[in-house]
């Protein structure tokens, strides 16, 4: 196939960090007018690969060809000159400038005058041709995540990119916004752009891509035509063995209103309301999902309940006792065993430089009267967790920062579950985890549920939430826009709630 | 815990305050201090003679021996003179410099090294080495310790040496007084490192003033204190203040030459200290009292070689040439200065003139030294804590 000119062709790319092999002999290609999905679990080397294309990293060996020419990309600027546009997960925009200013910024122009006068028309032509629906004079800080992403895409297109790489573009989008994005991508494909979309969501792969290259542990395992494959086959390629995609939802006898949040309002560090008048109840033996676009108040909800963030007003009742305003230690002293698995695992839930044993001690080091820490039970616990949860680690003495994301999560979740909580709060427990580990986590949560534990599950994958949770609470801008029954609702309904359309009163009563 | 904490800190705070203002423990009440040359005991040396080729001399300096003027320079120069006049080799002289006397640990380590290097005699040049030297003398009876400007000694291997620099100051006062008289302004300034309680500084000021008054009786001396032996900025400020107050000649007892350069900038005149400062201020510097430490070092080391060293405090002056004046800046001194100085110098050498001879009144009018009385060496070294008539602290 050497005759065919590919927009991007990677031959035997290898990249190592110290002794960690991030990419090994990766080969892939994409033509103009094609959408290629790169599918792989977290840690399979997708992002490293794309960072080499955008000049952030440099391959140790192997060859990159752009439009049939071998190239060396040393800096992001080189990538731009090669007409490669990269859309990162974290946007690189200047908040106080308008969309138009952000788009034209960084583009070399002879004088300011031509820039000001000529550009808007060029830009609006660009928007029209691809179907972008955006107000170019709006300031970035006033924009939603989806709008910001649009600006990023416009920016690279305006820089002349005809090769577009998107790293997990839908992670921050509602289902509706995802649809819009995909429509735009299809338009661009029609006009001859080469598009690479990095993702781990199977549904999106099936929906948008022409071909799929699957990465596993840094190697390119296979490239298949999307039309000729199935989610099941892709999963097997990704994981390396057959897996079941069913999520269990056991029916459990529930203890009503074990835990209640009543008209809770919380301000964040900037003094802005992160939660407004939030009320809900949580039963023992129930998994209550919390859905919402990232930054809708999930973090504040968790931290307020866990006693880490002060509330403006409201109450958090556990068996009708208000625990709001108490410190974590006081909450434990009340006989409430609450486990909180924070979103920020290494920044909050675990001490990254400590080993597994010492991390086991984080909430229990004070046990006993001796001034010294009793390491023995912690070591035993660490050892048993490593075996039970199949944590991959050289030893229990390895600092947790050396462990992969999934194993870190297992350490954290394992510790919290071992403390036999009555209430378990868990934020994005499967983020960054491979499919196998994710299912292991779901099983662990269900096990707790069967024991009668009340579980608050902050999630992002609506498919998972609909399968795992009993009810789903939807947050939008810090307010509850609805609490729905997971067995009867649809993704679309939740998507609408996420954008702020509240449910009608009757539906709420029907619960 | 918290309460205990509060109580303890209160107690400590009280103790601190009490210590600051309540403590007036008399110094040296238990040390056997023999000061001055008064007690001359005819004794034979406890030390054997040392072959000239074998003798080792250790020196402890406070600042760098690379300096080209000032205190350490004068001592280093003296050691070099001793080496040459006795014909010793470089290897026989071990000079440890840059040993601040505030870093007691370093002082002791350095002394130990000199002892370990088998020095026969060790000269320690700075006042605050004193307590460490005293300890070392007790611990190393075979080694001779000689300490400059202090107030301690023992009867076996530890003596103290200093000199009658006030004699040179008296003579420099003559130069200053004649210059002021020539100008016709009876106002002379003096920048002093330490205040009236410091006998060395105050004695020097008084001697200087007596020299001034011997040629220009109505002339007044105004003193400004910097509070530091070496602080060019403060010395400059003090000099400027004195000039602004109308002084036409400035003298100094402090280590930098800033007073002289300030005098030159303001078109007045100056008397330096420690080394000839004419190079720094050729249009202002008249003359400077200086030390010739080589006189003492040569004599002391020769005694060690001869096996005649005995522990006796050394306090000499013009009689042996330990103190003197730098060359007169002939182009600017008042006419007749050289003659007047030579006259007084001869009298000092002959013993006819003793600077601190009564009657002397202090500046409140009280008689301190009666008619015909003379201050003892002990009084000169530690007891001058008053300014004489004609000297004013400003």
């Amino acid at each position, binding site marked *: 196939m050497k005759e065919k000119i590919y927009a991007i062709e990677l031959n035997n790319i290898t990249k190592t960090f110290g002794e960690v092999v991030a990419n090994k002999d990766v080969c892939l290609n994409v033509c103009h007018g094609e959408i290629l999905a790169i599918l792989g679990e977290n840690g399979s080397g997708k992002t490293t690969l794309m960072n080499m294309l955008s000049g952030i990293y440099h391959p140790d060996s192997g*060859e990159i060809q752009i439009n049939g020419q071998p*190239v060396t990309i040393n800096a992001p600027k080189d990538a731009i000159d090669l007409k490669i546009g990269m859309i990162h997960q974290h946007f690189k925009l200047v908040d106080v400038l308008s969309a138009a200013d952000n788009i034209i910024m960084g583009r070399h122009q002879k004088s300011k005058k031509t820039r000001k006068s000529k550009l808007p028309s060029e830009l609006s032509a660009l928007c029209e041709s691809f179907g972008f629906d955006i107000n170019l004079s709006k300031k970035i800080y006033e924009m939603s995540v989806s709008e910001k992403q649009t600006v990023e895409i416009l920016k690279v297109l305006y820089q002349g990119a005809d090769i577009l790489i998107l790293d997990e573009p839908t992670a921050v989008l509602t289902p509706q916004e995802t649809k819009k994005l995909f429509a735009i991508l299809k338009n661009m494909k029609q006009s001859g752009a080469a598009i690479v979309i990095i993702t781990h969501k199977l549904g999106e792969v099936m929906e948008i891509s022409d071909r799929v290259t699957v990465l596993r542990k840094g190697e390119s395992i296979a490239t298949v035509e999307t039309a000729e494959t199935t989610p099941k086959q892709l999963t097997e390629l990704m994981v390396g063995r057959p897996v079941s995609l069913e999520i269990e939802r056991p029916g459990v006898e529930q203890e009503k209103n074990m835990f209640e949040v009543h008209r809770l309002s919380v301000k964040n560090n900037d003094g802005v309301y992160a939660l407004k008048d939030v009320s809900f109840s949580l039963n023992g033996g129930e998994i209550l999902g919390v859905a919402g676009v990232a930054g809708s108040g999930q973090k504040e909800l968790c931290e307020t309940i866990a006693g880490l963030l002060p509330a403006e007003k409201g109450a958090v009742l556990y068996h009708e006792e208000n625990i709001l305003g108490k410190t974590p230690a006081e909450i434990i002293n009340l006989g409430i065993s609450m486990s909180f698995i924070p979103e920020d695992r290494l920044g909050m839930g675990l001490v990254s430089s400590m080993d597994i044993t010492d991390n086991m001690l984080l909430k229990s080091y004070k046990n006993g009267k001796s001034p010294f820490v009793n390491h023995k039970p912690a070591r035993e616990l660490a050892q048993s967790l490593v075996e039970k949860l199949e944590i991959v680690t050289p030893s229990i003495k390895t600092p947790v920062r050396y462990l992969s994301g999934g194993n870190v999560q297992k350490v954290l979740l394992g510790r919290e579950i071992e403390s036999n909580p009555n209430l378990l709060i868990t934020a994005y427990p499967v983020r960054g985890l491979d499919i196998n580990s994710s299912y292991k986590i779901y099983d662990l949560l269900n096990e707790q549920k069967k024991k009668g534990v009340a579980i608050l599950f902050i999630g992002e994958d609506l498919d998972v939430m609909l399968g795992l949770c009993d009810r789903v609470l939807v947050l939008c801008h810090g307010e509850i826009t609805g609490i729905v029954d997971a067995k009867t609702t649809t993704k679309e309904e939740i998507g609408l709630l996420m954008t702020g359309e509240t449910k009608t009163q009757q539906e709420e009563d029907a619960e | 815990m918290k309460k205990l904490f509060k109580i303890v800190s209160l107690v*400590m705070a009280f103790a601190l305050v009490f210590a600051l203002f309540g403590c007036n423990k008399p110094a040296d009440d238990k040390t056997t201090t023999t000061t001055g040359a008064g007690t001359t005991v005819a004794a034979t040396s406890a030390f054997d003679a040392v072959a000239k080729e074998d003798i080792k001399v250790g020196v402890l300096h406070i600042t760098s021996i690379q300096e080209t003027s000032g205190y350490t320079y004068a001592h280093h120069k003296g050691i070099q003179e001793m080496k040459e006049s006795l014909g010793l080799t470089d290897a026989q002289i071990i000079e440890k410099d840059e040993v601040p006397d505030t870093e007691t640990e370093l002082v002791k*380590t350095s002394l130990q090294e000199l002892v370990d290097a088998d020095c026969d005699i060790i000269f320690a040049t700075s006042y605050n080495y004193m*307590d460490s030297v005293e300890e070392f003398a007790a611990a190393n009876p075979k080694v001779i310790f000689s300490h400059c400007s202090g107030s301690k000694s023992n009867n076996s291997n530890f003596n103290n040496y200093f000199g009658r620099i006030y004699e040179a100051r008296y003579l420099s006062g003559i130069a200053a007084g004649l210059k002021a008289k020539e100008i016709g302004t009876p106002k002379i300034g003096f920048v002093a490192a330490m205040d009236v309680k410091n006998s060395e500084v105050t004695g020097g000021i008084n001697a200087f003033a007596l020299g001034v008054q011997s040629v220009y009786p109505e002339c007044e001396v105004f003193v400004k204190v910097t509070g530091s032996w070496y602080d060019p900025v403060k010395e400059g400020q003090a000099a400027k203040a004195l000039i602004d107050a109308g002084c036409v000649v400035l003298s100094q007892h402090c280590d930098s030459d800033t007073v002289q350069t300030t005098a030159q900038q303001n078109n007045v005149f100056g008397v330096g200290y420690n080394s000839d400062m004419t190079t720094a201020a050729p249009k202002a510097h008249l003359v400077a009292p200086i030390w010739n430490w080589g006189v003492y070092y040569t004599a002391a080391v020769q005694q060690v070689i001869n096996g005649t060293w005995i522990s006796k405090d050394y306090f000499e002056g013009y009689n042996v040439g330990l103190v003197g004046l730098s060359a007169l800046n002939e182009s600017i001194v008042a006419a007749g200065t050289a003659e007047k100085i030579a006259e007084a110098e001869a009298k000092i050498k002959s013993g006819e003139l003793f600077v601190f001879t009564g009657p002397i009144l202090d500046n409140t009018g009280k008689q301190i030294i009666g008619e015909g009385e003379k201050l003892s060496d002990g009084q000169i070294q530690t007891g001058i804590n008053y300014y004489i008539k004609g000297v004013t602290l400003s």
Partner: protein
Amino acid sequence: MIANGTRTHEPLVRIAKRRERSRAELILLRAAAFLLAIVAGGAFIALLGHSPIEVYAEIFKGAFAGNKRDPLSAVKQTLVFFVPLIVTSLGLSLAFRMKFWNIGGEGQIIMGGIFATIFALYSTDNPGAIPSFILLPLMFVAGALGGGLMALLPAIFKIKFGTNETLFTLMLNYIALYFLKYLVSGPWQRTPGFASIGNFDKSARMWEIGGFHASLLVAAALVIFVHFYIKKSKQGYEISVVGESQPTARYAGMNVGKIILRTMFLSGAICGMVGMIKVSSTYTLTEGITGGVGFTGITVAWLSQFNALGMVLVSLLFAILQKGSSVMQTSLGLSADASNVLQGIILFSFLGTEFFTRYKFVFKKNNSKEKE
């Protein structure tokens, strides 16, 4: 900066972050650093026209070989440099582990010295005075209290107002120093004009055991204490967690403010003990009491990665260098400046190698990509 948009040139050398090295690798690397330092220092000595081997032998002799009467004389002197350094770095390392940048060791040592001196000044050897076995422990507690209170100040301000502790502790050093200057040339001055308070009476002097200061035992006890405090105690565990991440500490239910105050007090108290050790073994309090260990201790603590046993080694190295090279002046006639430069070169080479624990050089590879 690329030529025409298609092809660029890779720089010859790039600096890349490397994976963290294993313990064994780190030890090897440090050993190599030590060798390199010795070689670099040797080159400097050779440049001065001396034989490096002779000079190093002299340093070694200077640090260990005594005189005829007392073969341990040099060792004792080396230990005099060693003890304050190890104790200071132990104290500082507690705060550093918590990522609280206590640059105030100097000031805490001074305050410790001043507090201890208060008691020393009141004691006399007269009958009825406080006996040494009570006075010295009293001075010890006072010294610790002085240093501790001095360190508490920046901690309180950090917690209440979020002030920068680096600047705060640094500035307190000067306040302490000027306060000390005021005392020794003011209320506590012995002879007018000379900044000296005179020697303490015998009861306030550090005990000597076989010619060695008892402070060596204090240092040994503190090494063991700090080692177990950090590694095994609950409070040590808290320090590590707070240092790693305050959100984690709060998440674990720790009272972060209390931990910072307690740790800083302890850190300062240990530094304050240095002040007590210094005044009781030199028998006096002077402006130069710290000898700069408050700053050198920072280097020692970092070089040993806050590991108590590592600090023993590094402090010993520093002490040997300091004592040994000071002898060079007496034996080889090398100036004090030259030996300072030599110490600097050795330290710099040693510290410079730290770079390689985190980074590596990647050289351009001369293969492939040209044709085909």
